């Protein structure tokens, strides 16, 4: 049986923890709102980009550039795993890593070579144990407070440089799509070769027939600049979705933690009061029986 002092200490320590989790929850809520706003603000660009790309790609005859059609091989897969820099956000990091890991094992058992590029430290920490040799690089975005396009652009450029150097054939992006505070969906998205929305192409073909596009400078040149940008945009979008998801996950997990701490305090307080009462009763009995003995 713990002494009264132990119980008191335990209660006050849980109270301190509760204060921290409560504060973290509120900070996450504020950050979430900002992350959500910037994710929404970035949406128009990505949508227009997609429709423009579908437009142009629909008009391209033949194979087109390698970023669109692929280099014809399917041997080396690069998994770009985007996770958070910090923990304490529930299953957010683990669920992305789990998806990537399953994919990596599936690819490896199919006889493909797998390479991994980690964006965010937490994913690296978790993947390092199993895929030490396959991890090509770790990109940390720890210093980034507000995700800007200039943070995503170098990653996109690096992917293209690696692709052109023949380091991989297919690149897939892993991130968490933000649905709501309690629901974030780990997602995989193939970015090289680019996947063009089939419906968009069909639609573009319909409208394209009535209004043929004029291309300045030329179709091929436009596609050659458009495709690399599209990759950066996809990375940027993934990072923004991730940022919102991370804060959402942190908010709900910290909410849970605060509630658990509250319950624990309640239980401990009852135990504390009971044992205090028992002690008082015991002392009274001792005094009374002592007085009677006289």
């Amino acid at each position: 049986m713990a002494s009264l002092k132990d119980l008191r200490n335990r209660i006050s320590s849980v109270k301190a923890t509760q204060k921290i989790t409560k504060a973290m929850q509120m900070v996450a809520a504020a950050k979430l709102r900002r992350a959500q706003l910037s994710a929404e603000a970035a949406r128009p660009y990505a949508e227009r980009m997609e429709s423009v790309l579908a437009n142009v790609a629909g008009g391209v005859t033949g194979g087109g550039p390698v970023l669109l059609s692929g280099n014809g091989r399917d041997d080396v897969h690069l998994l770009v795993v985007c996770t958070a820099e910090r923990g304490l956000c529930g299953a957010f990091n683990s669920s992305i890593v789990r998806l990537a890991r399953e994919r990596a094992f599936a690819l490896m058992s199919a006889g493909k070579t797998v390479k991994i590029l980690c964006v965010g430290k937490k994913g690296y920490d978790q993947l390092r144990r199993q895929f030490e040799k396959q991890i090509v690089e770790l990109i940390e975005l720890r210093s980034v407070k507000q995700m800007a396009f200039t943070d995503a652009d170098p990653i996109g450029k690096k992917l293209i440089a690696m692709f052109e150097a023949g380091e991989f054939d297919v690149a897939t992006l892993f991130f968490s799509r933000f649905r709501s505070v309690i629901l974030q969906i780990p997602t995989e998205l193939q970015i090289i070769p680019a996947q063009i929305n089939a419906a968009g192409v069909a639609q573009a073909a319909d409208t394209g027939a009535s209004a043929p596009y004029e291309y300045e400078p030329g179709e091929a040149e436009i596609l050659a600049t458009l495709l690399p940008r599209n990759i950066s945009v996809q990375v940027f979008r993934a990072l923004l979705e991730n940022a919102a998801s991370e804060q959402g996950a942190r908010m709900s997990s910290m909410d849970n933690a605060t509630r658990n701490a509250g319950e624990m305090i309640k239980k401990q307080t009852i135990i504390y009061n009971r044992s205090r009462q028992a002690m008082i009763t015991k002392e009274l009995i001792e005094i009374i029986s002592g007085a009677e003995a006289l």
Partner: protein
Amino acid sequence: MAAFHFELVSPERLLFSGDVEAVAVPGTEGQFTVMKGHAATMSTLKPGIVEVDRGSSKQRLFVRGGFADVSSTGLTILAEQAIPVEELDLARIEREIKNAQEDVADATGDDARRMAVEKIAQLQEVKAALGL
């Protein structure tokens, strides 16, 4: 004059959306102005000034590369970066020029170097156009 729909978006946000009368666009192959009923065109952009004419008022924005997409529904500019001219200052352009110069130094292939050199020239044009 008839109005048409114009949208200017950068990766971070939607900067402009509304009905305008004319927009001057700095295309890589030369400046062109889009008005209602313009033929469907797709053009890349060079660093330069986009001039938006809303009839009663004009607005000037600096864009740093991107795409212009003219379709039957209107004009959409996908800018790599866009800043209203009022917020632009000499230091910022100088910085861009310096970046481009570093690109020239870092460039490995002929193509990359040529592009970087072109970019410097374009930026200097912008600087002159702004009278800074």
